[in-house]
């Protein structure tokens, strides 16, 4: 380390890079057991993970799933490799935790109906303002399959091949579910 050697004092501040460096340090610290570093990682990423859980499973289970994701992340930190950003790794872990829970949740809620008819409840709602759903609520009312494909594809940016792999379906089904979800949601554009 050359702290005593004159450096370039006029370098522009690079906040993004500094944030990435700080996160890299926090990941290393957390992997060594530093709870405060892990808390900083939690604070940085909780909104994204919670929103993913809420959109994929609904408000009732989002807190529980978010906790599960971070507990799992803590136990798996040693397996994180720096080839990907920590946020990407955490997000992938979150999707796996959420999807692993989806069958149970679907059974509990009795709403694992992915038929096209199940979309009618979303798409044919009246247009009167007092009865209209906002976009987020409309996503929450989609049948599980269509909602998960829509969230993963249109919000989270997964490709159909990846979604098919995650959900155990074929890419054609993923495309079809996505289209039906979009057709239902277009009625709820603000």
């Amino acid at each position, binding site marked *: *380390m050359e*702290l*005593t050697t004159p*450096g*370039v*004092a*006029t*370098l522009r*501040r690079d*906040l993004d*890079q*500094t944030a*990435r*460096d*700080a996160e*890299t*340090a*926090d*990941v*290393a*610290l957390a*992997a*060594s*057991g*530093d*709870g*405060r570093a*892990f*808390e900083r990682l*939690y*604070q940085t990423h*909780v*909104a*994204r993970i*919670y*929103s993913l859980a809420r959109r994929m499973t609904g408000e009732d289970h*989002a*807190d529980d799933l*978010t*906790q599960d994701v*971070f*507990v799992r992340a*803590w136990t798996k930190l*040693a397996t*994180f490799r*720096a080839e990907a950003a920590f946020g990407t790794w955490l997000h992938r872990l979150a999707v796996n935790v959420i999807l692993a829970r989806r069958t149970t949740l679907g059974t509990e809620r009795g709403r694992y109906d992915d038929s096209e008819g199940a979309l009618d409840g979303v798409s044919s709602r009246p247009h009167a303002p007092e009865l209209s759903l906002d*976009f*987020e609520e409309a996503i929450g009312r989609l049948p599980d399959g269509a909602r998960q494909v*829509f969230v993963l594809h*249109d*919000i989270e940016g997964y490709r*159909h091949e990846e979604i098919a792999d995650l959900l155990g379906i074929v890419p054609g089904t993923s*495309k*079809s579910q996505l*289209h039906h979800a*979009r*057709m239902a*949601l*277009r009625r709820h*554009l603000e």
Partner: protein
Amino acid sequence: MSDTWTNRLSEYVDGDLPERDRATLEAHLPTCAECRATLDELRRVVARAQTLDDRSPTADLWPAIARHVGVVSLDARRARRRLSFTVPQLAAAAVVLALLSGASAWLLLRRPDAGPPSQSTTTPTPILTNAGTYEANPRYAAAVANLERVLAQGRGRLDTATVRVIAKNLGIIDRAIRDAQSALAADPANSYLNLHLAQEMRRKLELLRQAAALAGAQT
């Protein structure tokens, strides 16, 4: 809507439609107002999905997570008396700890008949990993290198006295790390030395992180 193209419009929006079908659909669109309207709505849905805001849970989930993973929760820390330290103060504390730890290691190694301290006299620190593993971790090396680079870039924004204190204290911690490594080379199975090395390495990372944050915060 019963248009034969309706169910292909999402594929068209995503650029997934085969070339031949795309050309046919593009020839169809100028003649079909319904398809054009649906296409526009689908595009707006896609655009809307990409602008949704993430929001945090209404309840603070960290205390429960902290309990699960066995670390001190935010609430517990808030309940404590709040103290704040400057970087030089933290650095000084790090140096004192490093010197104390180094002296302990030196005393331990100086006694030829002294073995590793028994479990009953060692404060258990279960959250620390084995120092050998920690040292070999490429992320540790990368994190240190990144922070050193940030600090080197931002040193011009720090007060020279602060830079001097940081450099001096990092030097002391580095010496403690080297001493621990030398001692471990002679006694690799010594659990105390492994623990000591891991603590020093973590201390270095923490000091670098705080110093880099300070350098980045100066304007």
